[in-house]
């Protein structure tokens, strides 16, 4: 991460092997090691790790409600 003025703060983001420099002005809370969503050279959101498994948890909840019980 290159510390600079808030509007031009840059960070290196690894896109599964390809590393690009990305503007971090919109994610002032981001720190080294975070996962961010990048659009046209700007990080627009920091991935919330607690919420990242929700899509699987939700499926399990449906399962427990019995809606997925085998016919």
């Amino acid at each position, binding site marked *: 991460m290159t510390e600079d003025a808030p509007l031009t703060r840059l960070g290196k983001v690894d896109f599964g092997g390809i590393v690009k420099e990305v503007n971090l002005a919109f994610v002032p809370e981001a720190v080294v090691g975070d996962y961010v969503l990048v659009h046209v050279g700007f990080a627009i*959101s920091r991935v919330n790790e607690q919420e990242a498994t929700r*899509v699987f948890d939700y*499926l399990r909840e449906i399962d427990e409600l019995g809606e997925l019980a085998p016919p």
Partner: protein
Amino acid sequence: MKYLDEYRDGQEARKYADAITRLANKPWTIMEVCGGQTHAIVRFGIDELLPPLITLVHGPGCPVCVTPVELIDKAVEIALRPDVIFCSFGDMLRVPGTRGDLLSAKARGADVRIVYSPLDATRLAQANPTRPVVFFAVGFETTAPANAMAVHLAAKNGIANFSILVSHVLVPPAIEAILSSPVNRVQGFLAAGHVCTVMGYTEYEPLARKHRVPIVVTGFEPLDILQGVYMCVRQLEEGRCEVENQYTRAVRREGNDEARRIIGEVFEVMTRRWRGIGSIPQSGLGLRESYAAFDAERRFDVAGLSVEESSECISGLVLQGIRKPHECAAFGTRCTPESPQGATMVSSEGACAAYFRYRRRPAKST
């Protein structure tokens, strides 16, 4: 890659599809707003995994597709002016205007360059101080903060040879237009997750109430889309019409404060024309008067250009979810990605291009 591959798990996807099959008792038509979602749906065959009662129709969220044709003409006109360096995202280059596209302007000698970020264009402007550098600033709310930041930094750093040709559009007025149409058939929406990372989703709450439609903020991976469909169908079956957030790992209700602030600083809401749809009130963004010096339309005096569109292309109906790509007589014959009639066949996010690439046969009938 983490936070990507796990959301493409085929077994989990089938479980979701089974759950939706058990849940759905009536036929429902749901629109995914974003072109990125459309591509995931067609590429991974998500629509074919769903029960026949559920129909997905494809929405207007393809920035290249809805950019009005006169703006393409203005881009070509500006790009051909002496000394201009015209910068654009790659998929705008082959969108046909009435007098050719940007790629043909390049072939005629224009200096047209593909950039990855608007900041690449401001850097080019700094490196070439004697030449006017113009950036083609199109897109939805997702792209607006980046483009606003480029203009803001250009103003702050005195990059006087930089300007933007702007036609930004907004999702909520498009949803309002679709729901207000007498031929509307959409009963629920998957809102575009990335737009909502920036804007949040409070704007959708009055829309859901007014039109009594469920709106589920949804991500872009197959499992995201399937969960979004499940949540939407559940609301429809239960007679609810709320805004729900499937994409909680990236979207907060209030959106991204910093990104919204820079949009408000540089842009103001205005009426915009949408290609294939027409004028929608208060549906887009343009530069505020305080940033008028960076407006390429004024700088190059092209504001007056206005044109008509090809009559055979039904992209306007496709973008509103009224028709599907393969229902067009020109699809795959007179209209292909190599020789497109309309923007929905050009863009990597266009519904016609998705059908052409992944499904050169009719999808299940709707």
